Structure formats: structure tokens, C-alpha cells
């Protein structure tokens, strides 16, 4: 069984919103029609987005850290929004695990948005149907696109490669390895929704430089000059030690 999903690396996300704009651009131009966008340059801009980048402050000033946090539908393995739908418009695909809404069947009762603890579903207030991230289902299978572009628009747009895309059920896929080795986790595990999208935590990368690493071991007299040449074929310290 395939379960397509995103892995979002909070360690490298810089909060640039490129994934938000590319998502909106791709999906508002798609065959399902535009996503509403009222007063885009006015006082109270509002509209439907599949993806949002939020910002959190962790810790207490001055010891704080800013976490940029992109959030879209998590394509849960046990999606609570699907069984509550009275019409069957909301469904999870057997073939690849993407949770989708059939816009032609949706009656716009909003019950599924009540049943999503993540607030991932946003009703289109013009078309009056529920919308959410499709994982760019109209893009990832499009054989007219070059193979490396058959990825969600947000993944392609990310300038820091904070977004990875693949199959979480394939234990050797890029995203499974990232989840396994970089401490990937799910959001709100307390509700048993088993989100497919995972997040990679902040990881501190520190380089320790020891004092002896600042001094050349093969220069005991601290004389800065060109290294004296021995015989060309004689072994040197550089061959046998490394810093």
C-alpha cells in the first residue's frame, strides 16, 4: 500500500511563504476552478488556502527561538473527516492514501471541517464546497510533465528544501529515511488520526574545534613558512594523521 505524504523540516524552514503562494497559484489555476480570494489588496484580505505558514516563539525572552511552521492537510491514515461526510464527497484514495473532496458531491455542510482537529479544511465561500490540500493530485501523475516536476507545487517551490515528498509506507523512500533518522513526528498524536505528513524537529548542529586543531601538529616551532620539502617519496605526517 502506498501512502503519499510530505515531510516538513522545521530545522530549515525559513518562513518565506513560497509554498503558500505556489500552492495557491497552482491550485487556483487548476481544473477544479479558482480558489476564492477576496480583497487581496484591501483591508481584510481573505480566501481559501490549502497551505499556511505560521510562526511560533518557543521559550522566554531573551532565550527564544522562532519556529516557522507550515501547515496543510496531513492526509491522515485514519482521517476523522472522512467517515462523518454524509454524501461520501470526502474520501481517502485506496491507491495512494490521498484524502480528497469530490467538489461535485459536496453539499457544503461543513461537518468535515468540524471533524478535523488540525483546521486543515477551508470552505470556499464562493463555490460553497469544502476544499483542502490535494497533494497536487493533478500534478504528481501528469505524464506530460518531466519526471522531476511530478511533485506537489509547494515541494518544488521551497528554496531551502524543507519539504520532502514521497511514500511513507516504503521504508526505503527518502521521506521514510528522514523520519526514521531525523526524529520525524506527527501532530496531535493524542487523537489517533495517524497523520501521514511528518515534521522533522529543530536540530542543533554544533562544530567543536579543539585547541590542538588550531595548531599544525607538524609545525612544532610555529614557524609560518612554506613547508620544507623532504624527499618526494618519503612519508609525511599528513599521510598518517588527520585533524
Amino acid at each position, binding site marked *: 500500500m502506498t501512502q503519499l505524504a510530505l515531510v516538513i523540516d522545521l530545522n530549515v524552514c525559513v518562513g518565506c511563504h513560497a509554498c503558500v503562494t505556489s500552492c495557491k497559484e497552482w491550485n487556483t489555476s487548476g481544473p477544479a476552478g479558482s480558489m476564492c480570494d477576496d480583497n487581496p489588496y484591501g483591508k481584510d484580505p481573505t480566501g481559501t488556502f490549502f497551505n499556511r505558514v505560521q510562526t*511560533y516563539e518557543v521559550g522566554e525572552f531573551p532565550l527564544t527561538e522562532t519556529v516557522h511552521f507550515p501547515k496543510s492537510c496531513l492526509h491522515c491514515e485514519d482521517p476523522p473527516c472522512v467517515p462523518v461526510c454524509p454524501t461520501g464527497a470526502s474520501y481517502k484514495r485506496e491507491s495512494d492514501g490521498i484524502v480528497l473532496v469530490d467538489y461535485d458531491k459536496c453539499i457544503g455542510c461543513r461537518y468535515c471541517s468540524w471533524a478535523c482537529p488540525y483546521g486543515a479544511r477551508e470552505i470556499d465561500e464562493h463555490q460553497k464546497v469544502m476544499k483542502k490540500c490535494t497533494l497536487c493530485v493533478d500534478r504528481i501523475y501528469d505524464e506530460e510533465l518531466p519526471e522531476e516536476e511530478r511533485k506537489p507545487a509547494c515541494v518544488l517551490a521551497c528554496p531551502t528544501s524543507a519539504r520532502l515528498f514521497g511514500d511513507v509506507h516504503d521504508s526505503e523512500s527518502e521521506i521514510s529515511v528522514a523520519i526514521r533518522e531525523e526524529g520525524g513526528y506527527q501532530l496531535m498524536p493524542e487523537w489517533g488520526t495517524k497523520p501521514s505528513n511528518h515534521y522533522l524537529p529543530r536540530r542543533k548542529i554544533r562544530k567543536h574545534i579543539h585547541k590542538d586543531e588550531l595548531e599544525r601538529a607538524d609545525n612544532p616551532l610555529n614557524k609560518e613558512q612554506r613547508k620544507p620539502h623532504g624527499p618526494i617519496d618519503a612519508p609525511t605526517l599528513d599521510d598518517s594523521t588527520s585533524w
Partner: protein
Amino acid sequence: MNPAFSVIFLTTLIGVGQGLFLALFTGQSYSAVKLLPAATSVEFYSIGGLIALLFLVGGLIASFFHLGHPERAWRAAAMWRTSWLSREVLALPAVMGLLFIYALMHYMEWDIVLFTSEAGAELSVSLIVGILGMLATFALFLCTGMIYACIKFLQEWHTPLTVINYTLLGTASGFVLATAFATYTAPGLLKFFGIWSIIITLTALITRVASLLRNRNIKYKSSAQTAIGVRHTKVKQIAMGMMGGSVNTRDFNHHMSALFFKSIKWVFLVLVFVVPSILIWAGIEEANRTLLFSAFIVQYIGLIAERWFFFAQANHPQNIYYQTV
């Protein structure tokens, strides 16, 4: 949650209709086993059934205002295997259909006694239709309540008390209306319905207060920490990713002051339980129609406040993601 008046009217109106039907059926079953004088008028059951049907139709019409695409509403019957909303969509017409047959049988006086016991208890066809109607009515209460009670992360709703309150509050309002209506067509049953109204109203008071007490000490499972998965005692949102708000900021908050929210609780406790009980008591003592109808109207207004509070009180975990612009 942001209370939608379409849903408030849907749930309160069908509650009255279901309760009124239960009252009619209770009257008929008591007479069938000779606990009440049998000679209650035909109008009581037929016109009473018609009024109950009108309340159900009113609720149905109100529900359409909640839909983005009411013309596709018929599709909502499809997923009855998994969705309580879909089950409600099936149960509502079932109740309406049985109620229509029940009222029509009484109006046309089409009834056959199938069986009479030695003590004189009679089992008639209309009583069987009534039993089916009663089962459908309770099924409808169950569906309506479960729509809210089944969402486990709306912790204020995720309790059997939700179903019990929907059932008892709907039944109470229907019995109060039956009491007022009995002044026209069945004055002999005034005390019977009046006392039952007070009993059901006070039982509903106990269960509703129980749910208020439960929700007062609720411990939320989700927090900013579980929402973004950062294990630190201090996690604060500084931007929600948009400036003008969205469905997420509009649909999941009641947007009223804390004072207004708190006062609605006391308003409904007085209007649904205290005032109607006193009015019914006074009304059946004096057989005063005005008092009894005001009891119903006051209680119905109180139920609108109660339903508003029910929705407004539910705190959706998605709000954790939408704290600051």
C-alpha cells in the same frame, strides 16, 4: 464553535416536534391500558400530530440554510454506514412519514383493535404505528445527539450527556406544548401532561447541569505543544500566516464577549427550566391557557439560548493554530 442559527432552529424545532409526538403517543398508550380515560378527542391526536409534523418540516427547512448546496441535499443519505449526519437525514423523514400516517389514521378514524386482554387493554393498529414512530423518534434523537457527541476532540460534546440532553430537552418542550394544546382538545389530560412536563423538564435540568459541571472542569488533551510538536513549556504563536482572517477564524469562535457568553448560561437555565415549571404548575392549577402557552414560548426561547451556548461552549482544537494575527 460559532453557533449557526440554521442548526439551532433545526435541532430545537425538530425537538419540539418529536417531543409533541411522544406526548401524543404517551397519552394514547396510557388510554390503551386504561390508565387514562379513553374518550380523548380525535382532534387531539390528529391535529396534535399535524402540529408536530409542522415543527419537523420547519426544522427541515431551517437545515437547508446551513448547506452551501441545498440542491444536492439528497446525496446526504448516502453514507449512513459511517456518518451520524447521514443517519439523521434518513431518520428525519422516517419520523415524518410515520407521524403523518399516525395523524391521518386518527383523523380518518381508521383503526382496528387487534387484540383485547382480559383486563381490557387494547392493542390497535394506530398504537403499533405509534410504537414504530416512537422508536424512530428516539433514533432521531440519538442521531442528532451523536452528530455532536461522536467528534472526540470536541471534548465538551464527546459525552453521552449530549445525547441525553438533546432527548430530554426536546421531549420536555414537546410535552409542554402538548399541555398547552390539551386545553383545546383534551382538557381531561391537562394534569397528566402538565405533571409529566414538569418531571421531564426537571430531569433535563439535572442532566444539563451535570454536563455544565462536567465541562467546567474539562482538561484539554491538545495544547500548543502537541499542535506543533515542540516540547517546551512556553510555546506562543506570533503569526497565524494571514492577516484578514479565514474560515478558520470565523467558524470556530462565537465572537462574543466572555460576559455575554456567561450570561447566556444563566438566561437559559432560568428560561428553559425555572420559569416554564412555575408557569405550568400555575397553568394546570387554574387550567389557564395563556400561562401554558407562555410556558412553551418561554421555554422555546430558552432552548434557542441553550443551543447557542451548547455550540459556543465547544472549544475546537484547531483554534490553537489560530491565536494571533
